[in-house]
């Protein structure tokens, strides 16, 4: 019994020493970003690659990390070259954000051979922990919100629903978002299957598609699930043009700066704008990825076990909570 206690004490001391060394040590971590080309909307949600990279720069400020940044440029070849460079620089860990499945398999293989751990962002890499948006859950929040609004505010009226955005995008993420909206709506309103209105990723086309839909639904209440914030703003414009403000509401996806605003920018979702027909936008927090992902990376670097999959905690950002979730700094 005594020997067992001694053994435990030795193991505990060794572990705490190892932890202390890991705590004191600085690590070299590479982050290969999906695409930093200006104008590129990451996952179609209105965030830029620069915003994602900046979140890593800011989140690493208080951590013992020396960061190396790569831009994959949306190109699998470049992603492979960046991974090769990270291997040659003998980084302690690579955070990989690359949407090409084949390239990800190869990146995983090369890093494994080099003995460098990988943390995948949004797109899986074999045997690597994954931090990812949960598009299905996010879509469900949007669908449920619209359904609940209709039940509470239009209990005796006929409602129709539409999903507006780049609905034909072959990305499984978009398909998951659409499925989530549909399921969330069905939970609240079993007899209101949503129509799909395709914008092909262009807000102007989104406005036109919704205008046409509104013209065909003159005596009905309309629930619009926008797949991104740009489509939501286009939908709002179409509704205002058709003077249908009183019988339409919108819930969006993304909660990018387009709707919550930054310094001195227009804020569509704002406590001072509670009457907006945009009820809210489901947050994806891509502009905070660094704050979510780097703590997982630190745990891996310290030799701790991390979950195989860590999803984003999506919430609906509305006028009620926007200042809590995205504290503005333009009051100072």
């Amino acid at each position, binding site marked *: 019994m005594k020997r067992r206690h001694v053994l435990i004490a030795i193991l505990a001391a060794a572990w705490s020493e190892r932890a202390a060394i890991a705590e004191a040590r600085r690590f070299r971590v590479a982050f290969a970003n999906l695409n930093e080309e200006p104008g590129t909307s990451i996952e179609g949600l209105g965030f830029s690659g620069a915003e994602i990279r900046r979140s890593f*720069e800011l989140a690493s400020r208080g951590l013992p990390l020396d960061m190396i940044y790569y831009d994959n440029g949306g190109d699998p070849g470049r992603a492979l070259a960046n991974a090769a460079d990270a291997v040659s620089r003998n980084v302690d860990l690579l955070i990989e954000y690359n949407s090409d499945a084949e390239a990800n398999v190869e990146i995983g293989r090369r890093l494994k051979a080099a003995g460098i751990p990988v943390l995948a962002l949004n797109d899986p890499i074999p045997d690597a922990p994954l931090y990812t948006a949960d598009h299905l859950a996010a879509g469900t929040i949007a669908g449920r919100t619209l359904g609940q609004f209709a039940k509470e505010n239009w209990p005796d009226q006929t409602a129709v629903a539409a999903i507006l955005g780049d609905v034909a995008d072959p990305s499984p993420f978009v398909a998951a978002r659409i499925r989530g909206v549909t399921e969330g709506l069905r939970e609240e309103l079993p007899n209101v299957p949503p129509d799909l209105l395709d914008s092909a990723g262009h807000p102007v086309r989104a406005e036109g598609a919704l205008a046409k839909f509104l013209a065909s639904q003159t005596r009905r209440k309309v629930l619009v699930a926008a797949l991104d914030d740009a489509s939501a703003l286009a939908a709002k414009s179409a509704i205002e043009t058709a003077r249908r403000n009183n019988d339409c509401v919108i819930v969006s996806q993304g909660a990018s700066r387009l709707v919550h605003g930054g*310094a001195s920018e227009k804020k569509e979702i704002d406590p001072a704008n509670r009457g907006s027909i945009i009820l809210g936008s489901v947050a994806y927090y891509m502009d905070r990825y660094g704050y979510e992902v780097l703590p997982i990376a630190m745990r891996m670097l310290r030799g701790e076990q991390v979950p195989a999959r860590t999803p984003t905690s999506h919430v609906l950002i509305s006028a009620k909570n926007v200042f809590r979730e995205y*504290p503005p*700094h333009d009051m*100072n």
Partner: protein
Amino acid sequence: MRHVSIIASVMLTTLGLLGSLGVAQAQGDCKTLVKASPFGPDDQTGATNRITPAVTKAAAAEIQTGVVIPMANNLVDGVPLFGTRFTKTILTTASLVPGAEYGKNKLTYMEDTYLSQSHVGTHIDGMGHIGIMDCYYNQTPMGKFVTQNNLKKLGLENLKTFATRGVILDMVKVFQDAGKLKTNPACKTPCLDGGTVITEADIQAALKMYNVVLREGDAVFLHTGWGDLFTQFPAQNATYNGSEAGLGKAAAQWLADQKVVLVGADTWAVEVIPSEDTNEAFPIHALLLTNNGIHIIENVRTDLIAAEAASSKRATFFLSMTVPKAVGTTGTFVNIEAIR
């Protein structure tokens, strides 16, 4: 009978309105949310209590040459502002019209109307500026002390003098010497880039650079170089307002522990933006103002005094800054001078 019911209905409506007004305040338990003042339960003066005659007398020893260094930016339309804030000056020149002169000596006059919010340009944040829910400095439940026009507690009229010793901390030099200066390309002179956290170790390094030991009652100013963007207005207003280098929480707490009376900087918030914890709003403001009664001075012109300190190897000066007795206000523009 009908009269009675109308009166009752009006009374109920009024009571309901009063009730809803009460609920509209973000009420909290001020004794748990905010620290008590070390100067007593009735204190509305905050850290300027520390500027005693002895502190002012000791600070006067800083005046050795009589050279005065300006530390305020010009108050002029077009400087960086947030949101719906604005400044507008209107000059009244009516008596210059021929025939409108006064008396046989033909006296004329002019005056200005200055329209602006109070927190613009080089300005002081008073203790009525920042709170946690409705709890402000010294556990004051501010909801009970606000009217449509002003504060009934914690207004600027309660402050004592700022006649004390000033200390300039040249963070640009600290970061340069440590080989970690990452400047912003929009700055024409070296500056700490937006988001750079100033730590306690950085402050200690700045003090050591000129052999300064902080004293109770000191006024501390940070030179980050970011003020260079302010002087480029309006061209760099968006960059200036977009972020800034500034105090992190540990550094701010350390300064508070040294019992300083104010912290100023050549930035718009003194604290690092974005904050270390991106979910928090202005945590350093709450730490300094709300919990410690330490004033914050923003948009200070620090480049001249930093250059003077570098050439003379002396970072201390006599601070000249007066705050108007503007009753019930949360802040005001100030002029600041460093007397050497």
